[in-house]
């Protein structure tokens, strides 16, 4: 019923891949699929028309049709076009050097996630060494200021609430507050408003005039449908924002709206918001987004995430594993890292073809990780270091201690055995090879360490008990 854009394109290209030489009719079939897929991904239909037309034109050149690998060429053209449309540069927040405090204002529809985004932005800027102040200028929604105050307290950022009645007054007072308390950035959270609500749009303009923001960011829900063009167009005309924060991208919405926003307003997407935690605001990378849309996987994102959680201790652990083999503690460690990175499903879906594999397997059972953890926790220190000593008696005890069956303990031990075998093969390889090869192997190990259990973690095989 509902196919994601990446699945659709993948199917199309699988079909094209089987062909040696493409005809115009083949290209038309592919373009029709791309059109439907983009529409289902909520890219505005006018944008889709332009996009497909320009892709088709490029695909119809002799260079593509007569080449030995036409399908790859079509993929490349679609990818390039998507990336170009999404903006070719990495967009960052531009702050004025000669003004203190800098002012960032957030606008958007109701429920798009402005208040949450304000807190996340404050957290990000605080991490960069700034001292932000949050201004609660949503005086319309009940308890919006309370929400911001709670979030501010959680991340340790002050919140200015004023009288909570006149949004313009609260906004301008917050600037004085920031000057008094030496805050170098003020983030102004405003009320959600419909673009056709004249009174509310005027309020937004009044706040803008009162605080003269250096940056106005519009928060756009990644799930917004075709109407996104009307919304961003009106906001661009009335308030004139500088960039977009795309929220709720941690769902399965393809965020086709990102394409539409760029195409219609030319404004860059600056950040994507990927979850509920304050650190889930990420810089927008157009190339990654385009690749993700095309089902080529957000490999960079995963590597970055892995780097964030991998510390020196774990690098040492990887080296020790190479020397001495793989213990149950290592397995436990890996699983905790997978958790830190957002769980198996998030990692797998970011890998090339991962979404399809997951759909075929009927999703990932995250709870199996918890069960394995429970079993490992039920082992003694000695058992964890040398799982070989675990005999029938011990198995029974571990099963009872973790509330699992003996069969499950057996399966865990079997999997550990297989991983250890793989590890010794690697050991042999690293000891034989040159220094450079060894380094490569070690870095591979580290990445393996993050995802070593992954292929088995899908569906009924391996960890998914």
């Amino acid at each position, binding site marked *: *019923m*509902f196919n994601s854009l990446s699945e659709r394109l993948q199917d199309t290209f699988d079909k094209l891949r089987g062909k040696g030489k493409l005809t115009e009719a083949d290209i038309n079939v592919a373009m029709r699929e791309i059109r*439907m897929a983009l*529409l*289902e*991904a*909520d890219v*505005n*239909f006018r944008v889709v028309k332009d996009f497909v037309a320009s892709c088709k034109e490029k695909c119809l050149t002799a260079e593509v049709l007569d080449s030995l690998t036409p399908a790859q060429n079509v993929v490349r053209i679609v990818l390039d076009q998507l990336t170009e449309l999404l903006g070719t540069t990495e967009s960052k927040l531009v702050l004025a050097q000669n003004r203190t405090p800098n002012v960032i204002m957030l606008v958007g*529809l*109701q*429920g*798009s*996630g402005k208040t*949450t985004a304000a807190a996340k932005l404050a957290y990000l800027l605080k991490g960069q060494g700034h001292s932000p102040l949050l201004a609660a200028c949503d005086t319309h*929604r*009940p*308890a*919006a*200021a*309370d*929400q*911001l*105050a*709670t*979030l501010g307290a*959680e991340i340790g950022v002050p919140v200015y609430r004023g009288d909570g009645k006149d949004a313009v007054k609260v906004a301008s007072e917050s600037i004085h507050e920031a000057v008094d308390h030496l805050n170098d950035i003020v983030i102004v959270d405003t009320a959600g408003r*419909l*673009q*056709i609500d004249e009174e509310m749009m005027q309020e937004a303009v009044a706040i803008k005039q009162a605080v003269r923001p250096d940056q106005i960011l519009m928060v756009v*829900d*990644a*799930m*917004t*449908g*075709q*109407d*996104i063009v*009307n*919304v961003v167009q009106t906001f661009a005309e009335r308030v004139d924002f500088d960039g977009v924060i795309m929220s*709720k991208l*941690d*769902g*399965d*919405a*393809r965020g*086709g*709206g990102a394409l539409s926003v760029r195409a219609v307003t030319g404004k860059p997407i600056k950040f994507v918001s990927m979850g509920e935690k304050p650190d889930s605001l990420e810089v927008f990378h157009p190339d990654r987004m385009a690749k993700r849309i095309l089902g080529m996987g957000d490999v960079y994102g995963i590597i970055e995430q892995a780097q964030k959680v991998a510390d020196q201790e774990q690098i040492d652990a990887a080296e020790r594993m190479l020397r001495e083999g793989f213990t149950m503690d290592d397995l436990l460690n890996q699983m905790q890292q997978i958790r830190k990175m957002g769980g198996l*499903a998030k990692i797998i879906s970011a890998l090339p073809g991962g979404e399809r594999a997951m759909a075929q397997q009927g*999703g990932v059972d*995250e709870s199996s990780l918890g069960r394995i953890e429970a079993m490992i926790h039920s082992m003694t220190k000695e058992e964890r270091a040398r799982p070989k000593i675990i005999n029938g008696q011990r198995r029974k005890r571990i099963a009872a201690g973790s509330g699992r069956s003996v069969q499950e303990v057996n399966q865990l031990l079997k999997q550990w055995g297989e991983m250890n075998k793989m590890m010794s093969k690697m050991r042999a390889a690293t000891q034989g090879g040159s220094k450079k090869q060894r380094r490569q192997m070690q870095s591979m190990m580290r990445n393996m360490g993050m995802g070593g259990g992954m292929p088995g973690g899908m569906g009924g095989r391996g960890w998914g008990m």
Partner: protein
Amino acid sequence: MGFFDRLKSGLSRSREAINEIFYMGGEVDEDFWEDLEDTLVMGDMGGELAMRVTDDLREQAARENLNRADQLRDALAKRLAQEFRTADRDPFEDVPSCVLFVGINGAGKTTTVGKLAGRARGEGKSCLIGGADTFRAAAIEQLEVWGTRAGVDVITRERGADPASVCYDVVEEAEKRGTQLVLIDTAGRLHTSSDLMRELAKVVNVTRKRCTSMPVTVVLVIDATTGQNGLAQAKEFNDALDLDGLIVTKLDGTAKGGIALAISDQLGLPIYRIGVGESIDDLETFDALDFCRALVGEGK
């Protein structure tokens, strides 16, 4: 301004778009059908449904010899209205009744609960609000403001408490007081977050099990601006919770709410109310034909 006018003004953008093609030349040709399909897609109806509706209408046009664009307008409205299911029971009128509101973040659950509570009090029904959104910062405070405005008590617990226990409490209190309408607000969550969906399933199960004195209705609140992802949302929520129906909010913007049609068509869920404005009275009973007539731009 009556309901129809209000809805019509809210839906005017899509009506204009469709009017454009109906008035263009007035003759039905290939371009007409292509434009029609595009326009339906533009209303967030989804490519597949738009294609099916267009094909059906095309067949009907050939069969009944409808060759002028304006003739097809009424046929289209009726055809679209067929996609909607009608509700067997109105959970906000047939009291006693207990209604749980679920949906993704920012769909408008809390506001909808507030409005419905105000409405119920206005009609002289006794009402109780359950604040089971113990996760989002200040969600309880927001609900309490609505409760005070409506003169309805809010039963809740501190932030971070088990939401299922809140439901238990509120049902117990309602039974003690003999309350007619119980409205329970839950925390917004993305349908892709499996543990949060399981938590919600527990909340719903506890309520269904505990609440024996009145029927429990689980309503998905969906934002009219939502695109095709709305279908995935509705499907996941339905799989996890066995939904009873929908409430579509924010139809007062320029969004066409075509996703409501797609959901209703795919999952066979009735629409209980639609939100066409900011004030308490702007939460209206849904009428499929009115909705579709407004959508295709036909007069009264």
